[in-house]
C-alpha cells in the first residue's frame, strides 16, 4: 500500500514542475524580444570564450561601456522612427554637422552648456527638416534622408576643410564630467545616459499616448488619420527626436575624444537600421518594441568590439553583421510562427 500513493504523488509533482517549466518556456518564447536576447547572450559567450576572456576583461568592458552607448543612443531614436514607418539615413551626417556646430561654438568661447543647448536645437532643426520634406512633399524618407545625408556630410567637410580640430574638455570640467565621468571610477556616465534615454523612450513608446500614435501611424496610416491622429506631425516629431539624439551624441563624442573629426558617425545610418531590425522592428513600420530596439542597439557595438578582441581582421565585421542580421530575423520569424501555432 505504501509505495503506491507515494509514487502517485511523485508523478503529480513531476507534472506540476514540467507544467511550470513549459509555461515559462512558452512565455519566454512568446515574448517578442526573446530571440534578440538569445542572440546577444550567444554572442557574449562566444566572444568571451574564444577571446580567451579578453572580451570580459575589466579594461575592455570599460572601453565598451564608454564607446558603445554613442552608437546605441542614436539607434534607439532610429528604432522609434522605424516603428512610425520612416527611415533616417542621415544620422551620421546630422551627428558630424552638429559636432562642427559645437566645436565652432567652443572655439568662440561660449559657455559650453549654452553651446550644448544650441547644438541640440540644431539637431532638432535638422530632424524637423527631414520630417517636413518627407511629410509635406510626400517623398519617401529613404530618399529625403539619402539627400540630407550627403548634404550635411558635405557641409561639414567644406566648412572644416576635412581637418580635425582640438577640443579641450578641461575648460569646463563640470560639463565634461556629467557627460563622460566614471561613476564610482568604473561605470562611465555614457551608460547612464543610454539607460536614461532608453527608459524615457520606452515609457513614451509603450505607455504614453504619443507612443500609441507612433504605432498606429506605422501600422495603418489611413486608420490613424481617420481617428484624428496627425500622422505627419507624429513622424516629424520622431525625426526631431532622432536629430536631438544625434546632436547629444555629437557633444558626448567630442567631449570623450577631445577632437572634432569630419569622419564622425560615418556608416552609422545602416548600422542603426540593422540594430532595429535585429531587435525585431519591422521595415514596414508598426511593429517593434523598445526592449528589442535597446537590445539590438547594443548588439552592434558588441559585435564590433568582440571581433577586435578575437583579433580577427576588421574586414570580417561586415560578414558577421550580415550573418547576425539574417539569423536574428529568421529566428524571430520562427518564434512568431511558433507563437501563432500555439495560440
Amino acid at each position: 500500500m505504501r509505495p503506491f500513493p507515494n509514487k502517485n504523488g511523485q508523478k503529480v509533482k513531476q507534472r506540476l514542475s514540467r507544467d511550470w517549466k513549459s509555461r515559462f518556456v512558452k512565455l519566454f518564447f512568446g515574448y517578442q524580444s526573446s530571440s534578440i536576447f538569445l542572440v546577444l547572450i550567444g554572442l557574449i559567450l562566444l566572444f568571451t570564450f574564444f577571446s580567451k576572456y579578453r572580451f570580459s576583461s575589466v579594461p575592455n568592458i570599460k572601453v565598451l561601456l564608454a564607446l558603445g552607448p554613442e552608437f546605441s543612443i542614436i539607434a534607439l531614436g532610429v528604432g522609434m522612427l522605424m516603428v512610425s514607418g520612416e527611415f533616417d539615413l542621415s544620422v551620421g551626417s546630422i551627428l558630424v554637422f552638429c559636432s562642427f556646430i559645437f566645436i565652432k561654438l567652443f572655439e568662440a568661447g561660449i559657455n559650453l552648456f549654452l553651446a550644448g543647448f544650441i547644438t541640440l536645437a540644431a539637431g532638432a532643426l535638422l530632424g524637423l527638416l527631414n520630417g517636413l520634406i518627407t511629410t509635406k512633399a510626400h517623398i519617401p524618407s529613404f530618399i529625403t534622408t539619402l539627400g540630407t545625408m550627403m548634404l550635411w556630410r558635405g557641409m561639414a567637410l567644406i566648412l572644416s576643410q576635412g581637418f580635425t580640430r582640438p577640443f579641450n574638455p578641461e575648460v569646463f570640467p563640470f560639463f565634461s564630467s556629467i557627460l563622460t565621468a566614471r561613476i564610482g571610477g568604473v561605470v562611465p556616465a555614457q551608460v547612464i545616459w543610454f539607460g536614461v534615454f532608453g527608459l524615457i523612450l520606452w515609457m513614451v513608446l509603450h505607455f504614453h499616448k504619443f507612443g500609441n500614435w507612433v504605432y498606429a501611424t506605422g501600422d495603418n496610416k489611413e486608420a490613424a488619420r481617420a481617428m484624428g491622429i496627425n500622422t505627419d506631425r507624429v513622424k516629424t516629431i520622431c525625426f526631431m527626436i532622432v536629430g536631438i539624439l544625434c546632436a547629444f551624441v555629437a557633444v558626448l563624442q567630442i567631449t570623450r575624444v577631445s577632437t572634432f573629426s569630419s569622419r564622425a558617425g560615418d556608416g552609422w545610418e545602416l548600422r542603426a537600421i540593422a540594430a532595429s531590425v535585429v531587435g525585431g522592428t519591422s521595415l514596414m513600420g508598426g511593429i517593434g518594441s523598445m526592449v528589442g530596439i535597446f537590445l539590438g542597439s547594443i548588439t552592434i557595438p558588441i559585435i564590433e568590439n568582440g571581433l577586435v578582441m578575437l583579433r580577427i581582421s576588421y574586414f570580417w565585421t561586415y560578414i558577421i553583421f550580415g550573418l547576425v542580421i539574417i539569423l536574428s530575423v529568421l529566428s524571430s520569424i520562427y518564434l512568431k510562427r511558433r507563437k501563432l501555432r500555439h495560440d
Partner: protein
Amino acid sequence: MSSFSTDGKSEKSLVKMVSIEKWFGKVHALEGIDFEVRCSEVVGLVGDNGAGKSTLIKVLSGYHLADKGEIYFEGKKVNIASSLHARKLGIETVYQEQALAPNLSISRNIFMGREPVRSLGFMDKKSMDRESMKALQSIGLHLRSPDALITMLSGGERQGVAIARALHFKAKLVILDEPTIALSVREARQVLEFIKQLKREGISVIFITHNLYHVFPSADRFVVLTRGEKIADIQKKDTSIDDLFELIVKPPSHN
C-alpha cells in the same frame, strides 16, 4: 421618444442632407441628393459601383466638402469640415479594412487617437482595457482579452471592434461602409447582429453595400443611388429584394 410608428415619418430627424452637389473636375458625382436619417433608424444605402454612395458618405463624414447643399444635424445647420468635426457631432464612420491597426491590441485600437490619460499624457491602460471589454460586450462580442492583436481576430470580430469603438464614443450615427464584404457567411451574420444591437441602443445606422441579402433584413428603409442621383427612397414594407435589384440595375431616367 414615445413614437414607434412603423412608417417612421413622425420620428425625429437625426441628419438631413439637402440638395447635395459634388463635382470632381468635370464629373458630376452627386446631383442634388436629398438624404435623411431618423433617430434609431437603419438606412440601407445601395447602388452599383460609381453610384455615388461613398462620395455621399464622405461628405457626411467630413472627408469631402460638398460644392452645394446643406446639412442639418439634429435640426441645426452644420458645416462638416473635417472627420474630427464629424466625430464631435457623433458621426462615426467604419471603413472596411481601413479602420484598425492590425498589429496593435484591441484596446489600443478602440482608443486610438482618443486615449484616456492620467497625467502628463500617459495612458490609463486599466480603464482602456475595462472600457474596451465593456464596449465589446455591449454589442454581444465576447473576446478573451483586450490585449489580443487585431491580426488574430476574424473578419467579423474586426468589424465588431470597429463598431464597439463607435459605440463607446457615443456615436449617434454609425456609417458602415461595406461591412460584410470579404466576410464568411457566419461572420457576416455576426456583423448583422451588431447592427441590430446598435439599433437597440438607439443609434442610427447607414449601411452601405452591394449585397441586398445582407442589407434587406437589417434596414428599415432603402435609398437607391444611380450615377449620382437618388432614384428611390422606400420603406421596407413597400418593397422587396427583387424590386430593389431592378432599381439598381435600371439605367437612370434623364430629363
